[in-house]
């Protein structure tokens, strides 16, 4: 056991830093800020494209498809450096959700057709999992696909579809057999968003952002070649994806940076002329957060180390989801507390004029409200606890 980095790893860190220093000025201004800000498609893709040019856009992919071939330590260093520099994140829907499903379960044609376009950012993907009646109970989904010759005809509705307004493709779980056990009648389809019969309707969330959507399917024709794997085996692929989604969800490096930002706010804010950070109540809460975060970081490192030895992430990755999201939420909550009255102004009410209050206050309350989603999405934290109870503790 060893916590130190080798000279080669330190050299890699320097390489990442140099790349970031070079890339940062090329990004549109203000991209490092809270993820919930309304952004254009180009803004979202700016960082993706720079990484693509460098060959670094897909740390999780095997090298043969254009992945980086990095080991666990390199991925850790890369995440830490990009988070420290407050670089934007790449969107997970193509790169870390559907792509691993395609290169693990897809056929050669699908790999050839889709992977390069995901890598380059040419295709924007969104996730068609949740439905109005199927949230935590995902397997109860009702969007129906009926085989007619070379096509499936898809009818139904998906919801909470993140950034579907920009999407070229959607990966969808659809019901192809209603007469078997729920999990055994699901198929995994790749659907072109330009297909006639698809309608996207915005859902505005608590901070006023258009982040999610409803997606309606009305007799949408999907070629059979866009099915991943076998018919009625989609649940297996869906679960594979969910485990992947969970392990990326801890967001340790980003949370570390956010705690640092919180401490800076604590330096700037005062109680009776003394910095807030010196207030025992506030200092204790920040310390408590940092300690929980350190424990989470080492839990994640243990998981990654096991993965690098060939143990696939299992149900214990639910720990990362639960603790990671709880910590993210506590940071945003404590940030609002630190700011005091200037958390009140709604930054959306200022138009093109500068908002009032200190810069760090802008959007802080909205971010706190928005981050309540993290304990709901990706399998709610209640579902994650059920998973641990059943699959790990055997209850």
């Amino acid at each position, binding site marked *: 056991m060893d916590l130190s980095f080798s000279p080669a790893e330190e050299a890699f860190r320097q390489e990442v830093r140099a790349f970031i220093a070079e890339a940062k000025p090329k990004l549109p201004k203000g991209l490092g800020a809270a993820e919930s800000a309304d952004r254009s498609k180009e803004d979202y893709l700016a960082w993706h494209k720079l990484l693509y040019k460098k060959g670094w856009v897909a740390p999780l992919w095997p090298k043969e498809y254009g992945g980086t071939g990095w080991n666990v330590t390199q991925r850790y260093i890369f995440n830490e450096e990009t988070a420290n520099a407050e670089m934007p994140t790449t969107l997970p829907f193509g790169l870390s959700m559907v792509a691993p499903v395609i290169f693990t379960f897809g056929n050669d044609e699908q790999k050839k057709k889709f992977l390069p376009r995901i890598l380059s950012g040419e295709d924007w993907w969104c996730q068609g999992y*949740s439905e109005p*009646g*199927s*949230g*935590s*109970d995902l397997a*109860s989904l009702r969007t129906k696909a009926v085989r007619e010759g070379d096509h499936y005809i898809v009818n139904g509705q998906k*919801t*909470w579809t993140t950034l579907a307004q920009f999407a070229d493709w959607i990966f969808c779980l659809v019901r192809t057999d209603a007469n078997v056990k729920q999990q055994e009648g699901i198929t995994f389809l790749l659907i072109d968003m330009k297909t006639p019969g698809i309608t996207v309707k915005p*859902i*505005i*969330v*608590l901070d*006023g952002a258009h982040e*999610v959507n409803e997606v309606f399917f009305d007799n949408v024709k999907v070629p059979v070649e866009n099915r991943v794997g076998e018919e009625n085996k989609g649940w297996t692929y869906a679960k594979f994806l969910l485990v992947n989604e969970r392990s990326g969800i801890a967001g340790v490096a980003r949370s570390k940076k956010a705690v640092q930002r919180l401490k800076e706010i604590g330096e700037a*804010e*005062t*109680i*009776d*002329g003394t910095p807030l950070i010196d*207030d025992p*109540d*506030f200092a204790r809460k920040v310390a408590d957060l940092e300690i929980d975060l350190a424990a989470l970081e080492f839990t994640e490192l243990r998981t990654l180390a096991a993965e690098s030895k060939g143990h696939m992430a299992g149900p214990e990755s639910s720990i990362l989801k639960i603790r990671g999201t709880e910590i993210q939420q506590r940071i945003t909550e404590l940030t*609002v*507390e630190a700011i*005091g*009255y*200037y*958390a*009140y*102004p*709604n930054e*959306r*009410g*200022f138009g093109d004029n500068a*908002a*009032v*209050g200190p810069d760090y206050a802008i959007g802080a*309350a*909205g971010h*706190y*409200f928005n981050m*309540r*989603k993290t*304990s*709901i*999405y990706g399998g*709610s*934290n*209640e579902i994650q*606890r059920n998973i641990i109870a059943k699959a790990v503790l055997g209850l």
Partner: protein
Amino acid sequence: MDFSYTEEQTLLRNSVSKYLADNYKFEQWRKFTRSDLGRDAAHWKQFAELGLLAAPIAEEHGGLGGGAVESLIIMEEFGKALVVEPYVPTVVVGGGFFKHGGTDAQKSEWLGKIAAGETMLAFAFAEPKGRYNLADLSTTAKKSGSGYVINGQKAVVIGAPWADHFIVTARTAGGQRDEKGVSVFLVAKNAKGVSVRDYPTVDSLRASEVTFENAEGTLIGTADNGLPLIEQVVDEAIAASCAEATGCMKVLVDTTVEYSKTRKQFGVPIGKFQALQHRMVDMFVHYEQGVSITLMVTLKLAEEAAERAKAASAAKVTIGKGGRFVGQQAVQIHGGIGMTDELNVGHYFKRLTMLDTLFGSTDHHLKRYASLS
């Protein structure tokens, strides 16, 4: 000992509740809070006609002779409907300053106007650097002829875009944060030297940054010794705001329990899951504790200063913790739909979040309570 409401008080609650149920529906609220004005001007007039603005004001000044219990009833119902009109700034704060500190002439003029719905007031007390210390003031007031001249900036003045007058705290003597040397003034919004920057708040209210440049103000209460008066009035405002929060919590508890009975996952209503049942029980307990402590502070507002202040801080802490838990869990148990702007749940969560900040956070009041014990 008796915690029952009088017949008149019950009638008051019923009339507020009925008016809001008929005229202040969530769909209507969504529209007028997003309009340019940010409210529907008809409501304030109706509140006056229903006697709500007169309820806690003495009869000799045009009121109905009630007190803090009437304000509690009104604010609890207002909380349930997310009412945006400035009842606390105008009736509780404005009315409180004139009642406890005003001259006879000020009382008869201003309490009468408040009761009749002829004025809207805003309380300009917070400053960009002052946090929750009511005496931490950079705004100054200097005597000039028969009045005072005020200079300084006030932050996040709730209801200011709607107000015709401001109640302003300012330093007339002593150093920053000295308890002595604080005074309270009435300043007309259209007075020379007053400028405002209006904006919406995250919980759908309106507020302003207010700047005073040699603006003329009229003293309320005694010069240099205004802090005890401010503390008293703010404690009364805390009691009313806690009542508002319990109204918000009530809606969230009821809505969440109802939703959990109809929302099915895994073939059963989610309310059948014990993990969620216990969570909702805890929400309910927080609500009940909130109601109790709000009653406590309301009934102790007339006690001597230290006892009153302890009760107010105790209420603020209980409501702060409870409101946070109820708000967060209401969103969580609703799931995705609780995250949407379209459902009322998130808006109650936002209001509760901001009520925790108003007049001092949970941490602030824990400290204040400890310092008084």
